[in-house]
């Protein structure tokens, strides 16, 4: 057993069904609609599975609308439209994270999850900037303020940038740097998909930890062997796109492979990606398996 501080974590979303009938019942009763029961369910599953760094589960919305809905200059339609300068209008996920803080024990850590500026830009229809870099940096500046607000309540901020796997713009480091510069807590960058072509750029990102889908794309281990760095690594260890629940032995073997490649740079283990698309019982079983495997390799 390698005795050091490696924590189990999540990437972001967790599959909680939010029944419209419950929300309408609150509306008809003249009550403020509360999302806290759904956050409570998500966090309850994560902590029951033993996960040590939990998120709010991103139960409110898909991860694009979650942010664009609350930003000035954005208009939510089938795809969000950017219709004016992107402006931060106050906490987006801060209230939810504070709920998480009240729900968990002092020893449980929290990761605040941000959808990345490039992914937000690429997912929106830009009717204002007509310039990808300017639009992306507009989102980055708004996210910088959200990250700063979150840093009072979380132990880590994670930026989710799936679009980087498709296209890594020349200004990617600049955009991520806008968010991470001066942040008072560690920052993780999660890029899912096959990132083997861009590892040489990722290892230079201004963040503390990189997170990838190593379980779905084990060839990433080989890609990273070519680019040694000091960057901390979060090892995706159970798949988020497959309902089959991995065995503990299988995940242990996967983590041992990560140890061979990264050694002491492994700082976290997590699902490959957000678990929103999985059935809840499957997502929970995968988290439990992840935690058990992590304990086998790194201790409890």
């Amino acid at each position, binding site marked *: 057993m390698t005795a050091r501080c490696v924590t189990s974590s999540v990437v972001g979303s967790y599959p909680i069904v*939010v*029944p*419209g*009938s*419950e*929300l*309408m*019942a*609150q*509306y*008809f009763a*003249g009550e*403020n*609609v509360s999302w806290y029961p759904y956050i409570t369910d998500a966090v309850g599953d994560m902590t029951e599975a033993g996960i040590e760094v939990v998120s709010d589960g991103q139960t*409110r*919305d*898909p991860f694009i*609308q979650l942010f664009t*809905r609350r930003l000035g200059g954005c*208009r*939510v*339609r*089938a795809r969000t439209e950017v219709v004016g300068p992107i402006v931060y209008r106050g906490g987006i996920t801060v209230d939810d994270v504070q709920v998480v803080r009240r729900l968990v024990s002092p020893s449980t850590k929290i990761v605040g999850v941000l959808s990345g500026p490039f992914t937000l830009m690429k997912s929106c229809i830009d009717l204002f900037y007509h310039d990808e870099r300017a639009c992306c940096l507009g989102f980055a500046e708004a996210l910088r303020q959200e990250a700063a607000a979150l840093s009072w309540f979380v132990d880590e901020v994670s930026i989710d940038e799936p679009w980087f796997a498709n296209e890594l713009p020349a200004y990617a480091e600049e955009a991520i740097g806008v968010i991470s510069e001066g942040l008072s807590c560690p920052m993780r960058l999660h890029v899912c998909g096959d990132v083997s072509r861009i590892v040489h750029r990722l290892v230079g990102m201004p963040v503390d930890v990189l997170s990838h889908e190593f379980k779905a794309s084990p060839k990433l281990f080989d890609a990273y062997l070519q680019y040694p760095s000091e960057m901390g690594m979060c090892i995706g260890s159970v798949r988020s796109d497959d309902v089959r629940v991995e065995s503990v032995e299988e995940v242990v073997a996967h983590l041992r492979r990560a140890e061979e490649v990264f050694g002491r740079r492994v700082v976290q283990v997590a699902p490959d990606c957000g678990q929103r698309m999985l059935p809840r019982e499957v997502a929970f079983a995968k988290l439990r398996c992840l935690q058990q495997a992590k304990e086998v390799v790194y201790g409890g």
Partner: protein
Amino acid sequence: MFSFTKPQHAFELGSITFGGQPGEHPTVLFGGLFFKGVPDFKTASTHLAAMLKIGEETGMPVVPDLFIRKEEYIDPILSFLEQHLPEAHPFSVDIIEPSLKVKVLESLHDHDLLARTIYNSLHIGVTAPERETLKRCTPAMALIVAFNPKDASPDGRIEVLENGAHLLDRGLLAVASSLGIEKILVDTAALAPGENSGAALASLPVVKEEYGLPVGCAIHNVVEKSKWLSRYGSVKATVDVASNAGVALFGGDFALFGPIEHAPVVVPLMAWFDMVVSEYAEAYFGVCPSERHPRRVFYP
């Protein structure tokens, strides 16, 4: 005052027309028949007769909105309607409990009343059994409550109509269409003070311009929840009835004005506002009032 560039639907039900350009047809007024405990049909018939009479006198279209809260009251309430409402006159049924909605629809079918029924309401809480029943027992018209628990702005209303705000498999308009409901009224969902309550009124022209559908709301519900008004004695009741004027002034087509007992005040009040709107709409936009418009009744 408004006139819309989008062609406006005008739906006929019985002798009542819902929709059109502001100033064209008078605001349809829904008076609520609430039954606390065992229905008091004697009192209800008095109030219903009074509303129908003042509607006839002023040229204002009135519709009883029947609250059904228990299964055992379904048949007595429908029989009451058959006895006291003129043949072919439309009515709405306001039911919250999903299983009761199914039973009411089946009873409306059995009573051969669906051709006069305004279903109150379709919303994000629509259940699978409700959808199945609506396909078999399809009401002539349905009221869609465009409540979006994620976004209280007019954009939020559009989103829930368009794509269900990711709480449904599709938008509420598509849901209605898939059920064979052709005549749609959009209720812009009044919220409590402090929750962007003004957006219910602001959404009226937005939704009307976007879809050309008849729009309205129960803006008086905001007054009910404005507790501070109670400090001023009878003023609260005055504001309650007067609040409905906002619907006419914001280009709306119908108002759910609260208890039917308020009809003797609300109906002439709304006739006055409809005349003001009509005069301006005709002078500026060339919109002529319909044959039964209160302007023609009082200024033939």
